[in-house]
């Protein structure tokens, strides 16, 4: 591919990403506001001892919500490629790489936006001390971002390669829900059969699907799982770039 000036690439990416966001944010706004309110309530009840568990539960659910929205966006992209709508945009001077980058950017912007609105802003508004008191705050944030980026990049790669909405969301939901469940079931079965199973092995398998969860369960694995999610994301991003430049036909 001939090198375009970075300006024209960035321009195309920002125009297309703004268009995508314009089409999807409306659907998310209500959900995000609702999640923000629920989280705020959970924060308020967190002062009572049992409330802390509720808060953890709500946070985990909201986190699942982000990942579900990542799946939704990646499968929308796949659907655009599947139906032929992508041809509408790719028949303009927009490059294939800019097109795919705009989906990545839109997806990450939605995650970042919902993260701020549902978790960070209520926390700052209600209990700013809690945020700062969290030890390993930086690592925690890195792990959260790592997990979102991990899902975004992997599902975008799946979406542009398979170009099928249903298959892309199936892969997404497998990673999100079934993957961890299956690793736990396998663990239980192995324990029943073999008696003693290496817990680390199961944790690692779980970590493939949810690096964040692993890092929260086992603080020793925090750095490792952060490194894992970012490394995989980088490699998969490289695959996306190569695929977009060489093989993405519409």
């Amino acid at each position, binding site marked *: 591919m*001939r090198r375009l000036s970075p300006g024209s690439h960035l321009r195309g990416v920002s*125009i297309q990403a703004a268009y995508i966001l314009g089409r999807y944010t409306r659907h998310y706004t209500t959900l995000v506001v609702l999640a923000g309110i629920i989280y705020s309530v959970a924060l308020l009840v967190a002062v009572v001892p049992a409330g802390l568990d509720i808060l953890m539960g709500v946070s985990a659910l909201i986190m699942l919500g982000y990942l579900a929205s990542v799946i939704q966006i990646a499968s929308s992209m796949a659907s655009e490629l599947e139906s*032929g709508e992508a*041809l*509408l945009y*790719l*028949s*303009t001077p927009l490059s294939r790489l800019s097109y795919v980058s705009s989906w990545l950017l839109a997806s990450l912007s939605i995650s970042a936006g919902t993260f701020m609105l549902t978790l960070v802003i209520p926390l700052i508004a209600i209990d700013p001390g809690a945020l700062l008191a969290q030890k390993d705050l930086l690592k925690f944030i890195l792990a959260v971002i790592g997990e979102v980026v991990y899902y975004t990049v992997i599902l975008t790669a799946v979406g542009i390669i398979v170009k099928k909405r249903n298959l892309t969301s199936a892969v997404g939901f497998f990673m999100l829900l079934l993957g961890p469940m299956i690793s736990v079931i396998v663990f239980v079965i192995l324990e029943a059969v073999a008696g003693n199973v290496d817990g680390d092995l199961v944790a690692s398998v779980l970590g493939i699907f949810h690096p964040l969860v692993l890092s929260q369960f086992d603080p020793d694995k925090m750095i490792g799982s952060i490194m894992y999610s970012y490394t995989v994301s980088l490699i998969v991003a490289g695959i996306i770039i190569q695929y977009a430049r060489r093989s993405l036909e519409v």
Partner: protein
Amino acid sequence: MESVIYFEEVSKVFKNTVALREASFEVPRGSIAGLLGPNGSGKTTSIKLALGTLRPSSGLVLVRGMEPWRDPDARQGVGFLPESPVYPRTVRVSQLLEHIAKLKGEDWNGAKRAASLVGLDKLLDKPVGSLSRGYLQRLGLALALVGEPELLLLDEPTANLDPNARVEILRLISTIRDMLDATVVVSSHILPELQEIVDYLVIISSGEVLDYGPVEDLAKRYEARMVYHVSTRNPRIVARSLITYHYVEGVMLDTGGLKVYVKSTHHRALEEVLEGLAKDRMIDGYSVATGLLGEIYEAVVSG
């Protein structure tokens, strides 16, 4: 003449189909080229290769001197109407037009101009999903026209339209091309409807380009009949005299005169006769309307 589209031994292979086999042709600037061939002959594939959304398996594709698969800039100044376009249904007509305009480096005014060129002005606020087939096709044309392209690629623009909409879209294409002074490529598997608008042909069958060139040249080369337009105020008398020549295959009354069908091998002879008639003031003038596409096509395909 300079070529806007240039294909040199271009092949395109999908998993187990050869959609295009060492196709070579060119489309000169300023022409309205018909890309003719039956279903599955490789018309859409050729158009998408020119657009750069498909990668040639081998060979060289140049559009305005650039390789469109490698260089998105080749699409600057190219308008495209897909064979079966898919639009986002919930987006408003104006939003979609403006978005495509931005991607082409234009602003809302560019989008508005394109919309009024095809008569979409009144539907700008409607969701795309609410438009009828005919209006969706106008939207498609408008999207292709944004940015006043110098090359228009129209893939079966009249397919799936009812006869009225078909005629309107064809008329629109002629008008647009005169206004923009663009090079136009129209693919079709229906020959008669292109008769009136094309002046250049690329004939394709089973992935092979069988021949290409100006309609007149092809008509002569394949001895297809040619149609002359003769303007005269004495059509009956002129017709009676023309019909006596053995190479005149038919004469028909037409607005302002006659349509004369002639074997292309004898077009010079006819022209001499017509010049004689003009000298005698029996006719006011004549012009080659065109060669008959159907006959050219038959001749090319049968080798």
